[in-house]
């Protein structure tokens, strides 16, 4: 059992072939967003990057990502220079498409390398499981849909995240892991959601002694602190120098957005909104007051203030408090038992908490949960039981991202293949758990998975036949509510697994 087949590289070949074939596929406005950033970073001096607003898609990622775009633009200028002009809005010549799509594929090599390290670093008797998990991430339908059709650079970013997680596996790698994560934060700040777990783990495992909490390792503290400040300095230094910090941060954290994204991410707030919609009809019987101006606004999907008709409104503060409250138990456990497995589990739980309770969460953020969880899913059958509904609901919730006829079969067929292959493989590979299973999650999850079929049939075919273009929000609402049930269910399941093991 020295080698596992197919190897990572072997899987990469057909996957890459498929991704290249997807070049002419539908691409979202994110394509234009990134094209615009290429143009901004290439044609403007650094001073103006975060002020430029010719296009509505202003630069709202941290500086390292801007530098990354600048690097890409150095190659881009060898080809079609039209893509590097800020005024060329919605420019998508075939060369531009080829170039941008190719950069997504090439930068994804970071992910391949990180996964390779992950498999290499796992113990000999869990190699097989680690290999399967690595393949499942490499071939993830989430990455295919978001990166290679919709267009983003998640493969690259999650590659860095996994690199950092894998580095943290050995005590000697903790410092590097911290720096890599700091760099990742400077690439895309969505990973701030995971920062509490990193903070606690590095504090406990790197800055404090293994025996006692009071055994502070000062040298390590200084080293890590200086390292992180250096990384942050590299990223934000120039903007500090120009005195633009406030402008940069106002771009990074636009608090003016609403609670739910245009399409509800499958979280608590989706269920909350769904209940509100249902209550509108039930309110007269229950004698509840209905705010009439909210009735028409909630599901219209406009980005802005979300108001509820029956249920109380939610403020950003509430979501923040709830998120933190949901993270603290796991962080506490990590603090007292700082093992690598607990670290990954806490990362997953932090991601869950922020996805479920966060303010203005995108459906794409579900990868933040799925990917760290994949690393643990094969630990034993109990973990797998919690992972299964997430794998289904998380990917189903991404389907509305692609709505064109040509891409419809691609997203469905690819996801079905992935689910069939990996859920069956995981089922075969997951070792029995040491502790007895707590509750009968399996029946529930089987039923849940089966329910996806009629739901998708309704949303993609029946609804249109019945209503045509009317009630457009209904299928979306059903999908996000369905997916929310799965995500919440798997979260509860994982909480039980985590706190009882």
């Amino acid at each position: 059992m020295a080698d596992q087949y197919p190897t990572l590289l072997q899987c990469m070949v057909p996957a890459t072939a498929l991704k290249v074939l997807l070049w002419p596929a539908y691409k979202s406005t994110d394509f234009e967003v990134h094209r615009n950033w290429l143009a901004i970073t290439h044609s403007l001096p650094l001073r103006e990057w975060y002020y430029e607003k010719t296009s509505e898609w202003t630069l709202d990622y941290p500086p390292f990502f801007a530098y990354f775009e600048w690097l890409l633009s150095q190659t881009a200028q060898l080809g079609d220079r039209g893509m590097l002009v800020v005024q060329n809005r919605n420019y998508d010549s075939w060369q531009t498409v080829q170039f941008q799509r190719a950069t997504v594929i090439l930068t994804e090599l970071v992910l391949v390398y990180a996964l390779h390290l992950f498999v290499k670093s796992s113990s000999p008797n869990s190699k097989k499981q680690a290999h399967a998990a690595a393949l499942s991430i490499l071939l993830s339908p989430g990455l295919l849909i978001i990166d290679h059709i919709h267009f983003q650079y998640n493969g690259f970013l999650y590659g860095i995240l996994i690199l950092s997680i894998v580095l943290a596996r050995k005590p000697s790698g903790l410092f590097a892991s911290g720096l890599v994560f700091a760099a990742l934060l400077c690439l895309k700040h969505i990973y701030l959601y995971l920062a509490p777990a990193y903070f606690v783990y590095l504090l406990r495992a790197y800055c404090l002694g293994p025996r006692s909490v009071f055994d502070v390792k000062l040298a390590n503290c200084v080293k890590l602190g200086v390292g992180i400040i250096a990384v942050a300095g590299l990223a934000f230094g120039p903007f500090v120098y120009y005195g633009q910090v406030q402008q940069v941060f106002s771009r990074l954290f636009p608090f003016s957005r609403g609670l739910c994204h245009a399409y509800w991410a499958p979280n608590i707030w989706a269920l909350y909104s769904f209940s509100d919609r249902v209550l509108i009809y039930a309110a007269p019987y229950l004698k509840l007051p209905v705010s009439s101006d909210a009735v028409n606004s909630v599901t219209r999907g406009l980005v802005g203030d979300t108001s509820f008709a029956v249920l109380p409104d939610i403020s950003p503060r509430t979501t923040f408090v709830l998120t933190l409250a949901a993270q603290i138990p796991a962080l506490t456990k990590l603090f007292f038992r700082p093992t690598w497995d607990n670290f990954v589990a806490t990362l997953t739980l932090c991601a869950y908490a922020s996805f479920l309770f966060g303010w203005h969460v995108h459906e794409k953020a579900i990868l933040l949960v799925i990917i760290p969880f994949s690393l643990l899913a094969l630990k034993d059958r109990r973990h797998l039981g919690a992972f299964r509904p997430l794998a289904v609901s998380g990917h189903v919730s991404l389907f509305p991202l692609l709505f064109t006829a040509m891409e419809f079969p691609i997203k469905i067929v690819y996801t079905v293949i992935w689910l069939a292959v990996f859920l069956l493989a995981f089922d075969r590979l997951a070792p029995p758990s040491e502790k007895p299973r707590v509750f009968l999650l399996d029946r529930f999850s089987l039923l849940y998975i089966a329910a996806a079929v009629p739901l998708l049939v309704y949303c993609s075919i029946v609804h249109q036949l019945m209503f045509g273009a009317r009630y457009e929000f209904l299928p979306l609402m059903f999908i996000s509510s369905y997916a929310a049930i799965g995500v919440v269910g798997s979260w509860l399941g994982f909480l039980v697994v985590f706190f009882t093991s």
Partner: protein
Amino acid sequence: MAPPPAHRPRKKRRSEPSTTTGTITADQKPAFPFAAFFWPIKGINTSPWITLPVILMTTFLFRWTSALWPYSGMGVEPMHGDFEAQRHWMELTINLPVTHWYFHDLGWWGLDYPPLTAYHSWILGQIGWLVEPEWFRLYLSRGNDEAGLKVFMRATVAVSEYLIYIPAAVLCVRQLAKHHSVNTWDSSIALTAILMQPATILIDHGHFQYNTMMLGFTLASLASLLANRRLWSCVFFVAALGFKQMALFYAPAIAAYLAGSCIAPRLDLPRLFGIAIITVTSFAVLFLPLVLGTAYDVYRNVPLPSDATLPPLLASLPSWLVSEKGWLHPYALQLCQAIHRIFPFSRGLFEDKVANLWCAVHTSGLQKLHTYPPSLLSRAALLLTLASILPPCALLFRYPRKEILLKAFAATSWGFFLCSYQVHEKNVLLPLLPMTMLLATEGGMGKGTRAWVGFANTLACWTLFPLLTKDGLRIPYFVLTGLWSWLMGCPPFGFVTYSLPTTGSLEIEGTRDGDVVGEEGGPDVVSEILHLGVYAAMVGWHVVEAFVPPPEDKPDLWVVANVCLGAAGFGLCYLWCLWGVVEGSGMLYDVGLWKRRGGEGGKKVQ
């Protein structure tokens, strides 16, 4: 030498760990990447309800993503391309009376395929009309390049293929597996390799055609032959012919086999009559809708189009049939017109640049063929074609054994492709089909056969390259061809099939008690050198084609080079298949060149 008994007890091969097709190397590793992808389910009892759908869905993904790319004639004025032809046939079959189908405007993609294609177009057109009538308005929708129409048309190809070709391929692979005692795991790999064949995907889902319908019927016919259901095989083969006349490439081989199986081991007249009756009936059924439609139009007094000219064929019929007054006249007219459209004898020897003998001889400057009278040329083509197909067909007739069926089919269709006239470059799909099916036979994925199948497929795709470039399918060509040859372990991305002399691996095998059968039998030195030479030339050609513009006075030079090398390579494939037929038929034993018992040593000679 007798054909195997009709019913052979099923061998319990499935439980055996060893394999006979060459998917595993001597040190128990997957022999090529295709096998690696099936490694996790090796030796595990996996339900076919899982593996088969996953294979079919995966192959679908590559088809559908190829369909995202442009099709032939997309946005190319004035004539557009095959896509427009197919759309136009849908338009004309649903809007015109049946009697007009074969008479309608030849200039704009006139219907020149057999009736099954027309019926198929009619069905698809009816469905399309429900979706969006604007796509199929007579005259008005010509050259429509709407995105929605593209999705619809692409979907019709995929659905047609998944209804006909894919089930037929699955059945055929199963029959071959049963016949050759190949285990399920190996035949799953073979099936995937067959379905991922790049040329078929590129032509049908990229360029746009419905070849897989015809190929699918052919496979169904083959599967029926293997299952000893000769009558069904006649039905399916008539369907193949009725979909695309190019299925004629296979006709001599299938006729030889059927005739042979009626004569050997003993004369079986009922079987012969059965075959004859079923074939004639199938043809009758094939033309029945056309005849019924004609009857209906006669009843309604629908006149022929004003610009209709009588087919010359009609004049050669007996006068009682053709007299204007006779009630048979309209039917004879329709059938003659259909045949006239389907077999346009008046066209040239070859079209465009195709990698067959004639084109190679002509363009390479050996002989400028247009200096000869056309009648002489077509006679020469006929004679040469007959000469090339005679050996495989005669052998198949004399030794109607299932073992040589695929190679005989391949040799016959290579003969046609190389020597007959009116050949398109896309017709290379026909000889490729039986040749690729060899993967599913015993030892089919051993180095020898795999090397040849890989060689033929890569070369075929390469000869399609000029066409695909015109369609804007360069990238899918490189991706799909490269992917497939890598998966098969063939050059230019893998050299496992050509790893060093076979004596070395035989030694290893000796120490391991020869438990791995598929390891031996790599290609012999001569074919190894030829293959590698051709591969090197193909790679070199791509480099030159990409970076060096052709000389001003010879703008087609690169294409000519492509055609000449292609024709030579296909000639090699023909010879290899022919040799396989000779070897497999057992003729050499009968003639006395090989000794029956010690024949194994003799095999190594060539």
